[in-house]
């Protein structure tokens, strides 16, 4: 397989950013696997890999710089440089990564490393949204694609083809993606959505059905979630084609738990209503009714459920539903005010950002009552989290908090450094050492005399008693030997160790740099936290307006039912009194 086979159809057009979130997820997945069971010849290269494989890019980058500064990358220098480029990119330094990869395009660099550099540059451009440049760089790979990036190469080539709407080329490239590859279901899903956007509905359907099949063959959570999304997309297509029965069929198979179940349950309810199957709609809406009020689908379901009961003529049940909905909406608005207070808190952005991953991993968070302050925010920010700009704010903030912790650690270390330096500067002089040696020699002589006396004294004892002391005397002799050895070493010191002035100045300079960087980091954190608060509050406004809208709907429903009841009572009274309405 050569790169030109895959790339020959690329017309390098600028494309829209459909499915960007999916792409980002996959890119993260493959960035963590671009070195396989490396051949380590330099110990320090192994140390870099140890941090890298744990996705601690910061420490790995520091490790690389350190090893380079101490000339300890002799055999793995090129691999390490490539790795540095990849890590720099993953650590959010695209400009520097680009510079590193460009340096590796030098003709002196072996072909394989050069090919990898072209590949990583293409990946970098793709992540920046520059599809034209990504395609251009990918097509510059000469000869065969390096084995350890072959799968990622296919993945990237397919993504570029999809973005450029070269669907035939994308389908061909898909054949080269390994059958058990984690990328395949995502690629097929992305392809399907792009086909839909360009009007190829039939091809889109086929690919969405394939995604559902992947879910059956590999029932892991991520593929099941993707299959749920495919079923919803298919249901949406069926509704557009007025085939409600088919849509209903797809929706019946979406799981009733997980993040995408809310939209599915509501769509299921609406489809049933449109099919006049009111009784079928009620269980789905009831299931939603039990979930967190922060979810828009739940808010809609609450009012819709009341309306359904009304349609069925179950006035009492409908009235009860409206009253309960009103109560829930009031609680919802209260929880939004609480969330506003939470985000205004001093430490909350940090706690929220640092614990975000754990919170988002809790698939059933909507079913549980939040116990910690920052978790009260999470339900309102799910949609926001899927937007790339907000996601990058969170990522940058997380990195800045980590940098701040790192600098605080070094600030504490700096105090220790200064303490060591101070003691060394005020420490031993040649005179003190000479005095210490003389004193120790006097003590040694005195102890030796005492031991000698004791040894003579033991000889006057019975043989059995002498044996008892033999081991003690032996161990004392060893201690004297040890002391002798140490004393000889101290005597050999011509001049005591002094911290070099150069090192003292170096330490001071570095300590100043820590202080300056800490000030700069805090300044940037403050700016980003401000942005985060504005964006989160805007999202909370959005939620509150929606909540108040449905609250008003519930009130109107209640009023409508009261009106109707009043009318009925009046009509009844009029009938009884014989008065005309």
């Amino acid at each position: 397989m050569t790169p030109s086979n895959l790339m020959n159809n690329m017309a390098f057009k600028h494309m829209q950013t459909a499915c960007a979130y999916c792409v980002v997820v996959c890119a993260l997945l493959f960035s963590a696997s671009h070195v396989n069971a490396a051949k380590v010849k330099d110990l320090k290269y192994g140390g870099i890999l140890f941090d890298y494989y744990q996705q601690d890019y910061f420490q790995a980058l520091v490790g690389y710089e350190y090893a380079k500064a101490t000339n300890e990358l002799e055999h793995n220098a090129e691999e390490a440089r490539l790795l540095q480029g990849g890590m720099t990119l993953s650590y959010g330094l695209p400009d520097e990564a680009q510079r590193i990869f460009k340096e590796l395009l030098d003709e002196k660099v072996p072909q394989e490393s050069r090919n990898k550099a072209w590949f990583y540059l293409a990946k970098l451009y793709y992540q920046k949204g520059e599809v034209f440049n990504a395609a251009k760089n990918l097509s510059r790979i000469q000869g065969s694609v390096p084995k350890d990036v072959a799968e990622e190469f296919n993945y990237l080539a397919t993504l570029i083809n999809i973005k450029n709407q070269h669907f035939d080329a994308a389908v061909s490239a898909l054949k080269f993606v390994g059958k058990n590859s984690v990328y395949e279901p995502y690629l097929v899903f992305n392809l399907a959505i792009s086909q839909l956007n360009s009007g190829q509905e039939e091809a889109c359907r086929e690919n969405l059905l394939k995604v559902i099949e992947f879910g059956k063959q590999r029932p892991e959570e991520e593929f099941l979630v993707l299959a749920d999304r495919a079923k919803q997309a298919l249901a949406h297509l069926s509704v557009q084609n007025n085939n409600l029965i088919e849509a209903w069929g797809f929706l019946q198979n979406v799981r009733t738990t997980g993040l995408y179940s809310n939209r599915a349950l509501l769509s299921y309810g609406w489809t049933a209503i449109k099919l006049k199957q009111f009784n079928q709609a009620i269980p789905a809406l009831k299931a939603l009714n039990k979930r967190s009020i922060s979810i828009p689908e739940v808010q809609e379901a609450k009012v819709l459920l009341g309306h359904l009961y009304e349609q069925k003529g179950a006035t009492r049940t409908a009235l009860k539903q409206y009253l309960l909905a009103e109560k829930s909406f009031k609680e919802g608005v209260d929880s939004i005010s609480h969330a506003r207070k939470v985000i205004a808190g001093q430490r909350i952005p940090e706690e929220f950002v640092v614990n975000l991953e754990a919170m988002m991993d809790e698939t059933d968070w909507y079913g549980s009552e939040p116990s910690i302050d920052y978790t009260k925010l999470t339900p309102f920010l799910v949609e926001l989290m899927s937007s790339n700009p907000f996601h990058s704010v969170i990522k940058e903030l997380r990195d800045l908090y980590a940098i701040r912790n790192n600098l605080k650690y070094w600030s504490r270390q700096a105090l220790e450094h200064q303490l060591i330096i101070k003691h060394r500067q005020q420490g031993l002089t040649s005179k003190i050492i000479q005095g210490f040696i003389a004193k120790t020699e006097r003590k040694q002589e005195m102890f030796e005399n005492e031991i000698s006396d004791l040894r003579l004294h033991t000889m006057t004892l019975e043989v059995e008693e002498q044996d008892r002391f033999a081991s003690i005397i032996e161990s004392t002799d060893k201690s004297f030997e040890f002391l002798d050895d140490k004393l000889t070493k101290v005597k050999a010191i011509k001049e005591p160790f002094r911290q070099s002035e150069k090192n003292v100045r170096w330490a001071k300079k570095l300590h100043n740099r820590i202080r300056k960087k800490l000030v700069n980091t805090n300044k940037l954190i403050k700016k980003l936290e401000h942005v985060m608060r504005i964006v989160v509050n805007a999202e909370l406004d959005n939620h509150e307006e929606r909540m108040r809208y449905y609250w008003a709907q519930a009130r109107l429903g209640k009023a409508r039912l009261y009106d109707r009841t009043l009318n009925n009572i009046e009509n009844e009274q009029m009938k009884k009194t014989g008065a005309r309405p």
Partner: protein
Amino acid sequence: MALSQDKKLLWTYLSVFTLIILSLTVEQALAANNSINFAQDAKQKGAQAALQTVKKLSKEIQQLKSEVVDLNKDLRLMEEELLFPTSTQATVFVSLDIGQFFTLESIKLKLDDKQVASHLYSEKQRQALARGGIQRLHMTNLNQGKHTMSAFFTGLGPNGRPYKRASEISFTKGKGSQYIELSVVDDLDKQEPTFVIKQW
């Protein structure tokens, strides 16, 4: 009385009118909620503008990140110079070759009969070792001359049985810094792990 009846009539008309309007609008309102813009435009625009400022800050953040990486490198060099000068420095590393016959759980390290380090491994660390990573387990200062080092490896051996092994080395510390590697290697012929300590 007549006034009261007029009021009732007006009230009834109003109620019926409201009911008709509500009946007509409620379903449309519910069905069309996706197209309703719940957000106040000004505030949403403010949020978008705030997000745009992040792009401008991005350059500053990138620069800070690079500088902090560089600062960490310098601090590490300086601290080693201060605490572990080359003449006395000795460092112990751990590596794992494949790890098919041994799941490493912990290591205890003794230097001249004194325990100087111990480490409990997480799954993430085991994976990192299995893929070629090398861990720096311990760094210390040693005099020139003869020393002994023993390492005790605990984990799961073939067939998932608890496995404990020890390995020892005597070495002479020279003038320069000393690197020692504790290595767990799969012995494919014997189908069991071997534990090796080697000097670099």
